[in-house]
């Protein structure tokens, strides 16, 4: 149970405070409700590039990192399809330094051409390091493009192609900032050895005068229901054949989400999971196999990915996965297996709470979804999933015409 208090500033900034007296640290987490789904098709990768730019100096402070490090702190950020999340961890008695820094870069940036040019280079090297110069590096690009034809989830957060990052101009950065990086589009969470009164006073002092922006109206085209099986085969310089099957699944806030997540656990969490036991251990068709879900605000993907053993043909691999999934749609999940995945998820959630930064991020994320207290009801939602619900989810998801298969073959 994560206790918290919350208030909202006049400019719309939502503030959540979580007190924990057992730590000497404070975590300051700011979530901006903007991600790669807000990008234009010809300017993909922009939200992430912009995240880099946020460290390049603000109106009154030449650089973000140094003063925070000087206060004994550490910080980082990430961009996803839906959000951009910044965090600072520092000794609680230097809390004000984080308020000073975070509020200044919400007020306005330095917008220097030179630093934009450098961050474009850095992001281009990041793109090369993780998505080009890496075996299977372009897989996620291919899965997204195959699975989404209309929705902006069709490109990955890093961007569809290098040229989009290369072509970014300063005006786009300014427009983006003053549209999305406004207090009314952000959630500030302060967790750790902090008091609500102190946070209130600091929030008013540092963030209170930042002007609100226009309310954000999103017109993101939603992906139509998929009615045909899609298969893409590619050949690349990789040592081992691989297969990826991406099934459309529900959105994060959908009531089927928890059952879908547990279905993923049944397939892939732990050595006892079905994919590993049946396809790696018993049939020895794969050297590794797993499943993951994209957990997105709009409808997401349930992906199964496996690396094939040398003797396994790609057709055989596909057939074996489909057989296993068909089996789940035909039978009821037995109680022991259901209890197992519930025990697993409960432990996972409680371990997640051992870290104040995790608690802060979760509160921010659930506020973005609509209610920070949502995090405190997650375990009960998982525990109330029935075998029948799991069965229904499996029947809905694991259909050929709902599937996007990527056959990723070694060209050697």
């Amino acid at each position, binding site marked *: 149970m994560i206790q918290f208090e919350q208030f909202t500033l006049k400019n719309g900034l939502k503030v959540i405070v979580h007190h924990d007296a*057992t730590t*000497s*640290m404070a975590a300051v987490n700011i979530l901006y409700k903007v991600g790669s789904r807000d990008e234009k098709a010809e300017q993909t990768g922009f939200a992430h590039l912009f995240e880099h730019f946020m460290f390049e100096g603000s109106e*009154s*402070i030449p650089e973000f*990192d*140094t003063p925070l*490090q*000087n206060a*004994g*702190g*550490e910080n980082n950020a990430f961009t996803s399809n839906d959000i951009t999340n910044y965090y600072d*961890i*520092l*000794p609680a*008695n*230097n809390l004000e*330094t984080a308020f*000073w820094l975070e509020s200044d870069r919400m*007020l306005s940036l330095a917008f220097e051409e030179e630093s934009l*040019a*450098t*961050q474009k280079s*850095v*992001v281009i*090297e990041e793109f*090369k*390091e*993780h998505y*080009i*110069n890496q*075996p299977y590096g372009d897989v996620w690009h291919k899965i997204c493009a195959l699975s989404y034809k209309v929705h902006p989830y069709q490109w990955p957060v890093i961007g569809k192609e290098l040229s989009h990052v290369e072509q970014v101009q300063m005006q786009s950065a300014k427009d983006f900032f003053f549209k999305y990086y406004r207090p009314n589009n952000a959630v500030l969470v302060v967790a750790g050895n902090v008091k609500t009164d102190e946070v209130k006073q600091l929030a008013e002092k540092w963030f209170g*005068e930042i002007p609100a922006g226009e309310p954000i109206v999103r017109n993101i085209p939603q992906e139509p229901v998929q009615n045909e099986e899609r298969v893409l085969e590619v050949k690349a*310089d990789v*040592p*081992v054949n691989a297969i990826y099957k991406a099934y459309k699944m529900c959105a994060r806030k959908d009531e089927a989400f928890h059952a879908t997540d547990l279905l993923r656990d049944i397939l892939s969490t*732990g*050595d*006892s*999971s079905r994919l590993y*036991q049946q396809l*790696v*251990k018993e049939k*020895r068709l794969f*050297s*590794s196999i797993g499943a993951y879900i994209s957990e997105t605000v709009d409808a997401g993907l349930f992906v199964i990915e496996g*690396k094939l*053993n040398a003797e396994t043909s790609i057709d055989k691999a596909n057939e074996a996965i489909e057989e296993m999934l068909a089996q789940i749609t035909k039978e009821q999940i037995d109680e*022991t297996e259901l209890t*197992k995945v519930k*025990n*697993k*998820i*409960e*432990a*996972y959630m*409680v*371990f997640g709470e*051992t*870290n104040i930064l995790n608690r802060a991020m979760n509160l921010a994320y659930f506020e973005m979804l609509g209610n920070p207290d949502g995090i405190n009801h997650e375990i009960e939602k998982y525990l109330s999933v029935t075998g029948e619900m799991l069965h229904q989810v499996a029947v809905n998801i694991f259909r050929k015409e709902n599937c996007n298969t990527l056959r990723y073959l070694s060209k050697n």
Partner: protein
Amino acid sequence: MNRSIAPEIKLIESIDLPQYDLVHLDNGVPVYVINAGDQDVVKIELMFKAGKWFEDKNLLADIANRMLREGTSKHNAKQIADEFDFYGANINTGAGFETAGAVLYSLTKQVDHLLPLLFEIFTESVFPQKEFDTIANNRKQHLLVDLKKNDFLANRNFVNALYGQTHPYGRVTEPEDFGKISTADLTTFFKKYYNSDNLIIIISGRFDESLIKRLNLFFGNKDWKGDMPAPDITYPSHPSAELIHHTEKAESVQSALALGNLSINKKHPDFLKLSVLNTVFGGYFGSRLMSNIREEKGYTYGIYSSFVSYPHGGFIEIATEVGKDVRQATMDEIGYEINRLRTEPIDEEELKVVKNYMSGKILRSIDGPLKFSETLKGLIIYNQDTSYIQQLLKTVREVKSGELLELANKYLDFDKMYKVTVG
């Protein structure tokens, strides 16, 4: 309000170390107990002196450790997996250079269910051929993929250049090595090294103290001593005569770099001060290497240096991945930064930031029972206690830039560094 004025910083002058107890089980196994925090979780870390240092054939330590979950005289691999998973636990096995063992993460309310099996895998593992074939195959396939990664290759070629194939720190694994060990080798290794004379336990989280008594019922067993303590082994190293090693990859768009040379480890009195010098050089996001090569030049997504410390040795390694066209330019900048540390005293303002950053990092390293258990583990391997943490803080607060200049001349020499590139 003048936003260009920073709020006043409070310095970390001292820290309160978290409490822990050291108790001994009936057979003498030391158990470090960290009972704190707000969540009802338990982490049990079992460290045996059964790491790569003790193997007489490549891969034995690693595969023997991985196979602890693959079958005992009472349970097969599937039953073991089912049991740990059913109670929601995670068990991570892993072998390092010195120690090998397992970490169990469990909710406190479930941990009693898991102790018998946790003990069993360390005392009654049987290494079935069928499971060995699967694990060896999977590991080999994984290696084939790694061998396609420039950063993996650069690091591997680098440590091999430093130590050679005869030394555990330099030895690299080839795909065919998986065919050279047998289940009989694994059984012998297991019997020799996994025993109570060779074990240290760290237990952290929030639990009733009686848990230690229940732990003792299993791991305190007196009939579980080895034939002999882990021997004190030494290995010859065969450093490469060539400092420069390049592997060309026509299709690569980036090159991976690994530079460095043999150096001191944590046992050496200079190590604490050297960790400050390293932080300035390439040890954090604001370091000179990052500021120059990422933030000014935009050559890379990241570049780091570290003084890697193992119980029997250590080295400095600088690692990065950069655009192929700026490989030499990056090399030149690394040389330039080393030279600057050797000739110019570090500016007081820059040193102050590093000191404050490192003090905060020390505070974070002891925050919460699980984090503290990791830090404690790093000390135990070197027979150090938590006074080392106070010593580190004191060094960080007191070290002068003149001393760091001297250390740079003693421990950083670009001309003597191995320079390994792939791509």
